[in-house]
């Protein structure tokens, strides 16, 4: 009985919040706290990520900076962005950077994030081209690079575990995650068709389970 009462009260609270939120039009280029993230901060974060991006664990690093440390966006926002940008052409990491930059500051944010991601590698790759005979000839250089790449993959694994804990509250999302992983990671099905099949199923199930008033986000 008391349970019903509290649920009724909470339901009304959520409804009130919902209407308040609908009153002001949500704007795409603003963080919900109403505070604008400076372009300089966006540039700094993504420049650093771009410069140290060996071996492809980059999405993990972006997740760490944007979600864990800076709280620029929620985990769900970030991960849905990952799924969204992975099925589009281009490099995953720069696509994710554009997604985050755009969410924070619109076109200037996206352009800043993309530019920052590419400045470091652009200079590094040209420098390396000048000195590459020397670099490849260095004893142990290629062996060391294997270690760097493995560490980057380890970062990706940790992000996977952390994000899985946060997104899969329930059997259905967990099942969706595991099936996607098996299809792409183990069976090596091509990514695009898998997402095009799994995505609509998962979204349909989520739509069915979403209450008609949106749940409050943390």
């Amino acid at each position, binding site marked *: 009985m008391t349970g019903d009462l509290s649920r009724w009260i909470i339901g009304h609270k959520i409804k009130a919040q919902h209407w308040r939120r609908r009153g002001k039009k949500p704007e795409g280029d603003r963080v919900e706290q109403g505070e604008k993230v400076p372009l300089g901060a966006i540039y700094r974060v993504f420049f650093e990520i771009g410069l140290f991006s060996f071996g492809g664990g980059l999405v993990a690093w972006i997740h760490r900076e944007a979600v864990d440390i800076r709280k620029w966006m929620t985990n769900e926002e970030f991960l849905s962005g990952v799924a*969204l940008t992975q099925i589009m052409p281009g490099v995953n990491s720069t696509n994710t950077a554009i997604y985050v930059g755009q969410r924070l500051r619109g076109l200037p944010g996206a352009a800043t994030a993309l530019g920052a991601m590419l400045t470091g590698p652009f200079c590094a790759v040209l420098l390396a081209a000048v000195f590459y005979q020397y670099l490849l000839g260095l004893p142990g250089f290629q062996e060391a690079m294997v270690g760097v790449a493995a560490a980057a993959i380890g970062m990706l694994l940790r992000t996977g575990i952390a994000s899985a804990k946060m997104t899969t509250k329930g059997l259905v999302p967990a099942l969706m995650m595991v099936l996607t992983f098996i299809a792409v990671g183990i069976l090596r099905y091509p990514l695009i068709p898998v997402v095009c099949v799994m995505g609509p199923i998962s979204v349909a199930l989520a739509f069915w389970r979403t209450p008609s008033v949106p749940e409050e986000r943390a």
Partner: protein
Amino acid sequence: MNIEILLKLIVILAPLSLAALGGATSIYAPLQHQSVDVEHWVSVREFLDLFAIARVTPGPGSMLGTLIGWKVAGLAGALTASLALYLPSSALVFAVGHVWHRHRGKKWHTALETGLAPIGSGLLFAGVVTLARVAAEGILPICIIAGVAALMMWRPRLHPFVFLLGGGCLCYGLYLSGL
């Protein structure tokens, strides 16, 4: 003359940008065909060297296109090639993102977000396995992968550079000691 080469770079690379589904790996083959067989910008040997450079330097593997631009037309070529490679796909991501962010807060948007998030998680794990297959042969890289993941859970605020440096040093040390 120079302008002609730059235009040619754009004409060849811009479509590849939109064709690069699933990252840089899908453009290696057409890039090789165009720059080696058709345009004779670089020899096969040079192409492989450039490929190695793109792999050992930071940044996406499609920086290979930047290197080819640099090879044929210097700095202007490198800049042109980069823009041609990144702008088209980036513009597409931005356009889709624009629609996506505009509808924040609606029920179908919430459903899309909660529905796509576990798919994103699954893709992260798949990425781990796929990359490990390519980059990590033997027991040592597997240990580093597991070690870094465990260490990051224990100390999430440690700078990622520490892990990268640690992994590199460990492998270099083992190489020096002759293992």
